[in-house]
């Protein structure tokens, strides 16, 4: 029994050593460098799982409280076709993506719309902060009341959750333009739209991507939790809650694992797009300025 604990400890120490070694390894080779950048967190994650397995087994934690990763993995493999895939479709492909697109999209449009009115900006932003502080758990039942119990109401929750971060960041981004860059446009007698498209929008991308990244995790959490408040009998949040009630804790963790992977991938994709769009930003260059 304590063999598990000792194994966990040894694996952890070994992984720590390997990672320190990899990090310290100095090489000019770029492919090796980027490989190391991937391997190191993977080793860390695997270690985390091994330690988890070891602790759960070593201390004989009841499976209804916390199952070991191996059991969760078996559950995932067995349940992919049903119910994990339908749940994923319902929650991620419908609620999250639709809500995310509408929320971020409409916030962007509103930000551009109020951008011309300092009056609205000064009035709307503080009120926006106030509204975005409304707890999700409060909005979710209301959205179910308004939009019915299917995915539309979850998407609505996601819209509300993602709207204000996006609005605030976009407005901040549109204001980030330097005085001299703006003056340059003025000397060309450029129109409002020319200035927007050629100067202010490019300048705003780093801020906008910041919001898009924050929102990618918020959206998923929002959709899942919203399903605690009335749903059809499918969806990741529904499954998690129903499975806790039935003490199928392995299923709970299987869905959580899927959510974590999907969320991380979502975040990663946005980060990649960000890298491509804002390649010019100092934080992406990592070279010294001339």
């Amino acid at each position: 029994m304590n063999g598990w604990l000792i194994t966990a400890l040894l694996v952890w120490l070994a992984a720590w050593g390997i990672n320190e070694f990899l990090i310290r390894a100095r090489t000019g080779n770029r492919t090796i460098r980027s490989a190391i950048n991937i391997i190191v967190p993977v080793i860390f994650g695997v270690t985390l799982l091994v330690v988890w397995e070891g602790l759960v087994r070593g201390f004989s934690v009841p499976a209804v409280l916390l199952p070991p990763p191996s059991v969760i993995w078996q559950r995932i493999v067995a349940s992919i076709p049903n119910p994990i895939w339908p749940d994923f479709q319902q929650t991620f492909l419908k609620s999250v993506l639709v809500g995310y697109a509408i929320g971020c999209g409409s916030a962007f449009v509103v930000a551009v719309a109020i951008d011309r009115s300092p009056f609205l900006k000064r009035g709307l932003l503080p009120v926006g902060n106030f509204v975005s502080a409304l707890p999700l758990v409060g909005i979710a039942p209301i959205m179910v009341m308004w939009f019915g119990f299917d995915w539309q109401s979850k998407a609505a929750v996601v819209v509300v959750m993602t709207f204000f971060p996006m609005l605030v960041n976009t407005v901040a981004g549109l204001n980030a333009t330097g005085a001299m860059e703006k003056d340059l446009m003025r000397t060309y007698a450029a129109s409002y739209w020319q200035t927007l498209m050629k100067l202010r929008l490019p300048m705003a991308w780093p801020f906008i991507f910041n919001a898009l990244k924050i929102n990618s995790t918020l959206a998923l959490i929002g959709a899942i939790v919203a399903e605690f408040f009335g749903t059809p009998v499918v969806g990741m949040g529904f499954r998690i809650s129903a499975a806790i009630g039935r003490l199928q804790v392995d299923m709970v963790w299987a869905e959580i694992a899927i959510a974590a992977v999907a969320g991380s991938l979502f975040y990663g994709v946005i980060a990649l797009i960000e890298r491509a769009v804002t390649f010019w930003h100092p934080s992406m260059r990592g070279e010294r300025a001339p």
Partner: protein
Amino acid sequence: MTTHASVVEASGLGLTFETADGPVHALSDVNLTIGKGEFVSFIGPSGCGKTTFLRVIADLERPTAGTITVNGAAPGQARKDRAYGYVFQAPALYPWRTIERNVALPLEIMGHSRAEQQKRIARTLDMVNLSGFEKKYPWQLSGGMQQRASIARALAFDADLLLMDEPFGALDEIVRDHLNEQLLDLWAKTEKTICFVTHSIPEAVYLSTKIVVMSPRPGRVTDMIESTLPRERPLDIRETPQFLEIAARVREGLKAGHSYADQ
């Protein structure tokens, strides 16, 4: 427009910034006429209002006293006519555009065709010795190259009036000499009117037909020197007594308006 004798006419011009600490008199009672084809340098200690004056001409700042006309009308009209090119003190290149796209920016805005853009980019980049760097991004260039790219951008759309705020500040003597020659050449060929801010006395004397010496607190014109040098100026004109004499007068004017502790 080409029939106007004077391009810029300021009379009793004043500009006061209201700040939290009280008003700052950036310009006060400036009277100045710049004729077509003139090359006017502005020189003076830091904070004396050189940049502010250029910005007033460009309709980037509104005077609080006096009047100013550009091409015989309000500065705003000249701006809308895209009558001037402005080189800022800093390069102000857009980092997401390559050098070539940066130079193309005013051309895109003013609606030039693609082919026309290509031609002008090639011509102006060549003028500032940046051919071969079209596809680089600003951060891949040294400070001096960036500054030259911003000059190319101001030249690209061929405005009749050039407003240049310390364009050669970050360049070493040799490059500076070279660009001084190029600028004189361009000026001679095209009959442009140029307003030029600099800290360097030899540069001011070498380039200008008229040197305006300014002094701070409040910003005002303390001396105005019409150059007696010929229009044709080889680099070694700078060793002539005539040149040194003008330079000495500028230095005197500068010193008069100077005090270390407060600038």
